[in-house]
């Protein structure tokens, strides 16, 4: 064979040896630019522990759904019903924990099982509705755009119907711990979590390198590997340190002590630390990344997105795959419903409104191609973070509401334009 291709073992020196995805770098760069710009414009109010904490918990709900949207878009579908589905799940869970379980099933208010039954039932409902929509798309071959456009109207108003449009609350105290500020790990446990995360990350890097060496594959130089490990460790621990720097206001602490019938010691301080909702997002991100990269399901999702005929000829059941993808999306909508309603401490009729657009925008800004076959979980989460930073940054600066949306819309289009140009320049991927 006389095929000419570039030699495999190009010597990579300096920065190239790190082998960091340039797209990821670009997104992190854009995110940092946004943060620093707003920090300057708000005279240092943007990058405070308090604002970073708030930014994080505001992002979680959209970010969780965006990870599912990656799978949907990668398989060349779209889901316009995620916000409405979130509302239906939220309404169902709110009614379940405040009316049905205490009254109909006689558990009474504040039963310890209430939040767990509620969450399990909510997740089941979301998965079921998602699977149903997936069945309409996959087996009855109705375009996903139409199925979920209909779903948008249906589920938004099923939510309304369930609650008669009322705001339902207050929710169960344990349930509300998943919302953010009402449920955090506190300083010590946050540090423990951070250290465990660093240990795990370094172990993952090391074992991946060992596996490559075992197969005689080329590996990065050791210093490059160490640098990446150090950056990851610094990132994780820095994030924990920032969250731990946000202290609970002393008046709130006093009330906590009073509730327990104690007096707060003089000079006592405590930090919020890592919110449970963020922990949930991290868990979702890890599981979804594992599914995407290390399971047959994920492989088939990407193969189907790249070439549906090829997947079919290779024995992939693409119809069932569509059902699974939409079922995952539905489950994640339900999980987001837990976080969103818990954060607001009640279910309101407009919960999740326009979330479908935020979620799709997050996935697309994060590098998911609408043509299918391409997308990453971490990209979608970063995309959600960028969207949320823009929105709350502009609110802090005092940009007029109409201008805020004009900017967000422009950024979305510009991001896709840049991505298209980048892809043409680098050829593929």
């Amino acid at each position, binding site marked *: *064979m006389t095929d000419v*291709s570039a030699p495999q073992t190009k010597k990579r020196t300096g920065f190239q040896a790190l082998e960091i995805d340039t797209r990821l770098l670009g997104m992190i760069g854009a995110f940092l630019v946004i943060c620093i710009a707003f920090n300057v414009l708000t005279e240092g109010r943007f990058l405070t522990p308090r604002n970073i904490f708030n930014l994080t918990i505001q992002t979680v709900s959209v970010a969780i759904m965006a990870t599912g949207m990656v799978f949907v878009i990668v398989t060349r579908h779209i889901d316009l019903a995620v916000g409405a589905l979130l509302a239906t799940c939220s309404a169902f869970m709110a009614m379940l924990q405040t009316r049905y379980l205490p009254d109909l099933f006689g558990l009474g208010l504040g039963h310890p099982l209430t939040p767990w039954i509620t969450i399990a039932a909510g997740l089941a409902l979301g998965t079921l509705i998602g699977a149903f929509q997936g069945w309409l798309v996959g087996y009855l071959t109705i375009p996903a755009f139409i199925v979920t456009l209909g779903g948008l109207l249906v589920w938004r108003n099923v939510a309304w119907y369930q609650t008669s449009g009322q705001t339902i609350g207050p929710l169960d105290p344990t349930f509300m711990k998943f919302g953010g500020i009402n449920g955090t790990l506190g300083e010590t446990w946050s540090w423990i979590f951070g250290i465990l995360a660093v240990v795990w990350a370094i172990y993952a890097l090391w074992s991946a390198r060992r596996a490559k060496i075992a197969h*005689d594959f080329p590996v990065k130089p050791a210093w490059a590997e160490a640098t990446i490990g150090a950056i990851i460790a610094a990132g994780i621990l820095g994030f924990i340190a920032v969250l731990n720097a946000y202290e609970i206001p002393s008046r709130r602490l006093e009330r906590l002590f009073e509730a327990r019938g104690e007096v707060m010691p003089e000079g006592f301080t405590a930090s919020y630390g890592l919110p449970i909702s963020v922990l949930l997002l991290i868990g979702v991100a890890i599981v979804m990344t594992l599914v995407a990269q*290390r399971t047959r399901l994920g492989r088939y999702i990407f193969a189907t997105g790249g070439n549906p005929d090829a997947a079919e000829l*290779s024995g992939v059941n693409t119809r069932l795959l569509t059902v699974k993808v939409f079922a995952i999306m539905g489950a994640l909508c339900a999980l987001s419903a837990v976080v969103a309603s818990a954060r607001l401490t009640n279910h309101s009729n407009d919960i999740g409104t326009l979330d479908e657009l935020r979620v799709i925008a997050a996935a697309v800004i994060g590098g998911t191609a609408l043509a299918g076959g391409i997308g990453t979980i971490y990209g979608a989460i970063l995309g959600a973070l960028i969207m949320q930073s823009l929105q709350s940054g502009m609110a802090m600066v005092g940009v007029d509401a109409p201008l805020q949306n004009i900017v967000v819309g422009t950024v979305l289009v510009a991001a896709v334009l840049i991505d298209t140009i980048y892809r043409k320049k680098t050829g593929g*991927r």
Partner: protein
Amino acid sequence: MTPLCEMRDISISFGGVRAVDGVSIQVNPGEVVGLLGHNGAGKSTLIKILSGAYNADSGEIFVEGQKATITSPRDARRYNIETIYQTLALADNLDAASNLFLGRELTNWMGFVDDDRMEAETRKIMARLNPNFRKIKEPVSALSGGQRQSVAIARAVYFNAKILIMDEPTAALGVHETQMVAELIQELKKQGLGIFLISHDTREMLELCDRVSVMKNGRMIGTERVEDVTEDDILSMIIMGKKPEKAA
């Protein structure tokens, strides 16, 4: 010698039209048999019966002398019959290893796909088929037509194909890449595979094949050794449906 694969007296009709009418064809180990004919002559239909996509109305298939029952693509795979489709059934966004193992991924004890092992296997098979193939980790969209074709062929070879069906393998390729596929076919011949080749390019067929069979209107016009015929003989078989004078 027992033929590696023999299709005997195969017939199939679609809505009253006899697409394939009593056709027999066989391939020996290390032999390339070309199927020629106009569009609609029945050659693709015949070969789809062998690959399991269609079920014949009558006739028998023998693999290594044993009667074979092939009713689905999965059956065909069980008899080590692999098909390389005209449209190159590859997922462009995945790398060579993922494509090679698509639908048959290697997994580790936890049930996760074992990318490292699949990459190692891909490197091994590619070293055999196309030693210059280096772009193991890149999406196949970054590969040339010939490289993509070698991924498709590797998929067939890796799973121990004994009988290979290639439907227009060079239709979308340039001159240089066509040459690559030709060399690959020679290599597979040496390894003892039996290959059915479908093409419109008469001259190419005379170069690649040991024997060529010509079909017209669902019937077999004749099978000739390539040494015995000229391009004109073949063309007249395709167009007129007549066997050349000297062979008759």
